[in-house]
């Protein structure tokens, strides 16, 4: 795959991107918080050095909080169904960190498991992911545990890095990515050689929380469905669900019909396993009726069940759940209880 140097500065590159009639989505401060938002002009863009990561992940652009699945109308005594149209405009999501970019390989798996979710994939196929290597980190980051690094390009179509001369260059990861760069040839210039790795990334990797042996962790989980630790680990949880709503890989949803007098819609709305009504049956029975059971489900799903099925963890170490938890439940510390750290040299 090819590499390209960004000729002028980063903003100019984005300007070029905007001129291609893509919907460009990138980190931007809106109402006081940093989140992935639509970029209207290049001046709004933040360069990869200007942020650590956004508050919420990019999943809402593929799997929105609320999404109509089917619509219907009543006319007299008849009911008419109507399909929902999905946005057709091609998009570029720009500036994802490795932990977010990697989430797509996870979501892709789950949204085509046994049934292909056309809503997700229609959007997915029309979107080009441009990742950006991390130039800083915070105390919550733990991507190395999940097998990632500040400069992993996994899941991205294009990946932005800094070379030794502190200049940004683009790494084409997929053909889709490469085709996009070809349209931007005025802004970039192909590099002959593979650029040298900037030592910054190694330095950050060392700053990140130490890697936990997830294989060992899974072994523990395999044998400890019943364990009083779950009670202890979850006792302070308030079931607020912030962890799941912010997680780039959590994907549970609820289906709800909303009916007015003369029309209605069936919707998919986000849900979260920590909510006490999450598995409540209409009979009144709830198989996961305690916080301990719900928290066990969360950890098991992330580090055991998903691994059993897809041989991956349902976590990219982005640290969002840790930052957001109002009572400081730290999934890294939790997993560390079950498994040793990996010796590193």
């Amino acid at each position, binding site marked *: 795959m090819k590499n390209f140097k960004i000729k002028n500065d980063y903003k100019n590159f984005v300007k070029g991107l905007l001129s291609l009639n893509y919907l460009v989505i990138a980190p931007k401060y*809106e*109402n*006081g*918080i940093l989140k992935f938002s639509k970029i209207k002009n290049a001046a709004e863009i933040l360069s990869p050095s200007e942020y650590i990561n956004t*508050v*919420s992940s990019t999943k*809402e652009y593929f799997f929105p*909080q*609320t999404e109509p699945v089917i619509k219907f109308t009543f006319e007299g005594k008849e009911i008419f169904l109507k399909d929902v149209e999905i946005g057709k405009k091609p998009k570029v999501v720009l500036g994802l960190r490795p932990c977010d970019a990697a989430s797509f390989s996870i979501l892709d798996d789950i949204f085509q498991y046994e049934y292909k979710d056309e809503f997700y994939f229609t959007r997915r196929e029309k979107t080009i992911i441009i990742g950006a290597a991390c130039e800083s980190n915070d*105390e*919550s980051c733990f991507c190395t545990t999940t097998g990632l690094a500040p400069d992993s390009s996994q899941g991205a179509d294009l990946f932005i890095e800094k070379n030794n001369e502190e200049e940004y260059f683009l790494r084409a990861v997929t053909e889709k990515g490469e085709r996009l760069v070809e349209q931007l040839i005025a802004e970039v210039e192909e590099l002959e050689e593979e650029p040298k790795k900037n030592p910054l990334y190694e330095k950050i990797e060392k700053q990140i929380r130490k890697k936990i042996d997830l294989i060992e962790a899974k072994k523990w989980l395999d044998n400890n469905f019943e364990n009083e630790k779950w009670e202890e680990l979850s*006792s*302070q949880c*308030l*079931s*607020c*669900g*912030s962890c799941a*709503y*912010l997680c780039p890989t959590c994907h549970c949803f*609820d289906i*709800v019909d*909303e009916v007015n007098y003369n029309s209605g819609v069936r*919707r998919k*709305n*986000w849900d*979260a396993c920590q*909510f006490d*009504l999450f598995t409540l049956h209409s009979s009144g029975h709830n198989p996961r009726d305690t916080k301990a059971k719900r928290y066990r489900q969360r950890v098991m799903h992330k580090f055991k069940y998903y691994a059993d099925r897809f041989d991956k963890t349902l976590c990219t170490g982005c640290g969002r759940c*840790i*930052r*957001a938890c*109002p*009572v*400081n*439940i*730290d999934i*890294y*510390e939790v997993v560390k209880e079950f498994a040793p750290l990996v010796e590193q040299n």
Partner: protein
Amino acid sequence: MNSISEIAKKLLDENRVSAVVGYSIGSLPNKTKTVIVKSSQQAEKLIFNNLCVNNLAIYLTKSFRLTTQKPVAVVMKGCDVKSVTGLIQEKQIEREQVFIIGVKCNGVSEDGKNLSPKCYSCKLQTPKMYDILVGEEEEKNIEFKNPFSDVEEFEKKSLDERWNFWMNELEKCVKCYACRQVCPLCYCEKCIVDKTVPRWIEPHTSKSSNLSWHITRAFHLAGRCTGCGECERACHHNIPLSLLNKKMAKVVYDNFNYQAGLDDKAKSPLADFKFQDKEDFIR
């Protein structure tokens, strides 16, 4: 004076309480972790410092609701005790079920740098109600601020400015209901938004259904919210929920001369009335 961990140890050893809810060192530099300690060995963990911003009253209903015969001890700042008063007032707990380890508080911080906004208008460095009191009161050199100054400031805006402000803010809401979950007074087992027959508040996110939710939240807390600010802290989209809560508190204070969390015998203002209540808008 005894430290919190010593007190906790003693209480647990003497079998006087079934658990102690408190704070311990957090996993991140500017956070403390809430813990529920059930054995005296674990009591070592308990600390108190200026990062202990959480209101632990939440656990009295979330974790212990009438399940324990023995009381539960809780570490409480002056402001947190107001929530306990509210819970007693609303028959969720009985005073005897809680052993309050009151701490004299000199202000807490959410990020380790800035004082939490609620501390600027706090007059309760020493809790009004406690079973044992720890900590030293320091000369408070915080400039006291009118708790309603931001409400008054906001009210000066025009109708459209206010509407646009809230629409921008509420648009961010993803209906995770974390604000509700962390609220010590949102103790309902089944919240009105989880009720489906009928569904007064639609579960999807949109400005209108988000508005219904936030009106509901604010209104249900009117005269009950003690201003602990946990909802705003839990909101990862930084929606200024306290502004709404404070507005409600102000309305209730101005009209009915009532402040929440001060009297566990008082009637909640919206479950009460006076013949002399004044209004000027009913035709």
